[in-house]
């Protein structure tokens, strides 16, 4: 009780102090400032209700304005664009510009240009960590069905550096190591061969084919990749490396969805192509990009994620994409963006 009295006194004295400067009185009481839980929740509920009503009113007014504009034959009022962390993203000077000659020269000089120019066929070796079970092998099975020219080798007890040497000898162009922890694939290591970079990804949200509703089955077509939003320099490099190397791309233009579908079903005439998801769906988050092949001890990193970089939610090192597989052709559409993550969804189209 004594404490209560004290509090009251304090609040009184504060109130008394508040009378002198007028702006302090105007300050509204936030629910979070109320200490009594019942009162706080009551105030909060009231506020919430108010906000809801206001929102409804606004929406009604907006709809009415639109309707009126339609009736009068005028231009409807412009739709407002919501603020997202993506469109309020921090300015990034590393974003590639289409007229940057240095970028193209760099592209020509990098490790993957011979594959991207189709001078070389990509050949991929997939292996695992030392112990793997359960979802790991299934995931690899699905990867093998989606990625052309990929072979699986048992890991055995070989050192990764030895495997790199072996793969180099056998003319593989890249090596994928699926790392499993607690019977769940949790990391992906993609090593470019013979000298290319090593990317280490954290793998999460893995959904296998059988768990996807209405999934399709991959066909023997070469997949086509659509890469969107790999705009920063790092994203560009990753995009060139990981995806385009794995599956040599064929065409890259917008609106090819219908074009391809038409091409395949030429005699039937007009067909509507729909996408059907077929492959494993997962999210990749880049942990590090290493210069040269796998070498954790003396390696040189091109990019490492450090906790000190995460000071803002609006900074993206590269942007989320969704990858899809349309009748053996892959699509990546920019969907929900989150920081330096890559979402893979592999789609397959309806059988026509």
């Amino acid at each position, binding site marked *: 009780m004594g404490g209560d009295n004290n509090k009251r006194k304090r609040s009184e004295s504060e109130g008394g102090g508040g009378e002198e400067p007028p702006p302090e009185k105007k300050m509204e009481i936030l629910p979070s400032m109320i200490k009594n839980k019942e009162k706080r929740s009551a105030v909060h509920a009231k506020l919430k209700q108010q906000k809801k009503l206001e929102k409804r009113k606004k929406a009604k007014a907006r709809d009415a304005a639109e309707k009126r504009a339609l009736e009068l034959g005028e231009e409807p009022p412009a739709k407002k664009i919501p603020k997202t962390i993506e469109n309020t993203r*921090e300015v990034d000077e590393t974003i590639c510009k289409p007229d940057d000659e*240095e970028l193209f020269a760099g592209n020509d000089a990098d490790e993957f240009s011979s594959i991207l120019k189709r001078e070389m066929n990509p050949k991929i070796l997939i292996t695992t960590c030392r112990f793997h079970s359960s979802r790991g092998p299934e995931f690899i099975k699905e990867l093998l069905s989606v990625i052309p020219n990929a072979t699986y080798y048992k890991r055995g007890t070989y050192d990764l550096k030895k495997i790199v040497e072996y793969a180099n000898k056998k003319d593989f162009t890249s090596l994928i190591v699926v790392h499993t922890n607690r019977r769940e694939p949790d990391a992906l290591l993609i090593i470019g061969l013979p000298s290319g970079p090593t990317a280490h990804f954290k793998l999460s949200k893995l959904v296998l084919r059988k768990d996807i509703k209405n999934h399709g089955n991959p066909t023997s077509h070469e997949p086509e990749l659509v890469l969107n939003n790999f705009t920063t320099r790092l994203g560009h490099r990753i995009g060139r490396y990981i995806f385009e190397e794995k599956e040599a791309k064929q065409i890259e233009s917008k609106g090819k969805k219908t074009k391809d579908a038409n091409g395949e079903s030429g005699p039937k005439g007009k067909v509507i192509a729909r996408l059907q998801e077929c492959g494993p769906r997962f999210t990749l988050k880049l942990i590090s990009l290493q210069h040269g092949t796998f070498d954790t*001890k003396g390696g*040189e990193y*091109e990019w*490492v994620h450090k906790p000190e970089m995460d000071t803002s939610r609006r900074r993206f090192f590269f942007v989320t994409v969704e990858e899809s597989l349309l009748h053996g052709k892959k699509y990546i559409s920019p969907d929900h963006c989150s920081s330096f993550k890559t979402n893979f969804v592999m789609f397959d189209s309806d059988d026509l």
Partner: protein
Amino acid sequence: MPRTTTLECPGCPPLRALTFDELGLIKVIEARGKQGRAEPKLVERWGDLDSSKGVLAASLDDRKSDPFLDGAERCCLSSDCSPLIHVPSEVHWLLAVARRNGTIEVLNPLNGDLRFSVTNSSNNGVQPEDDPVAGLHLLARKNLELASRSFTLLTCTTKGSASIRSFELTKPAADVTSTGYSRTWSVGAGGNILCSKVDGSENYFLLGGKHVEMNVWDLDSCAKIWTAKPPPKNTLGIFTPTWFTSATFLSRDDHRKFVAGTNSHEVRLYDISAQRRPVISFEFRETAIKSVAEDLNGYTIYVGNGSGDLASFDIRTGKLLGCFLGKCSGSIRSIARHPDYPVIASCGLDSYLRLWNVKTWQLLSAVYMKQPLSNVLFYSNFADEEAEVVNPPANRLLHGEHIAAERDEDETPPVKRKKSKEKKGNKKEAKAKSGNNEACEEDGGKKLKSKKSSKRLKREDVDELS
């Protein structure tokens, strides 16, 4: 509410730096403007885009002293290049660049004109791509004794063939002839040489690499004078293989002490006069040390590693003085210390040139350079004085005086360095040290006075002219 804007960098003192990248481009970065508030910008780009011409090593020779040895003719350079650098009409400054395809180009560091290029002699039929240049040094003082228009190149390849060649500039911007002095010798012992350094007096040559212990060569006789000994096996009986990735002399005029960084993330201090094993050895983070640079004071060193961490150490104790934090994410390939300002530049695979304040460990500025960088160098005589640009002929002589004053400044650091060395020494020398300190202060006072007097002189000159 998260912060949506990036932290503003405070800007840096007026300076001019060169960066070299893997596409063979040379970029000039300049910061000019108000004292301490300048924003560094990319001002020039030299070279064409060709990955076979990627820069492996570079060396800049822009001594302040030399242009004034021949005395008479001095003027500002043409307006297209930086008018803020005062050079003699017979430009003697040179920039040597070793490229991936085995050529070594000598450029004019003011406008990027190619003075001359030479292929690295690989007479044993080795392709230059297989045996790239690991170290390149333009020897400045060597040629003072020779004709004033010659220069000497010291190169060292990864497989271990070192060569000294001197050339003569027959005409400015014309062809170059070899003076005939050339010497090639083998320095590698079955390993790969990764780092090399020449000391301030240019008599000693430091080498090290993968499976090559640090060794010191006498450049006059081309003989090995010292080799390091690997540290003993650890308590588990495991021997870490030798793999040096970077090295630097502790101070410019002492060839006996040097610092080396290893692939096993160790930094080691060697003292030739003391022992063959490292005097001090300490570890820094988890990835390989990729670059090491010394400060002017002779005991601070800057260490950069493969995952983009940069820190300064006091080499006398091996203690970490401070880390440079600035969201640096790529391997640091090169660190350069500004000769006058307390500024260091670091660059590397994340294609940013970052400028740091040495005293506050603050990031001054980060410039995005679009390409993974391999090297950074500072111009030592870039002064931001627009007044002098306006009427260059009026203060022709004054530049001399001004730069002479600067030279005085330059001469002071060795005194400080001595001081630092003596700190390590016994107490008897402490008295001498204090004496030195006083001398140093006196020097400083003189320096200030000389600056003032030069300014005064300038004004008088202008008055006379007007």
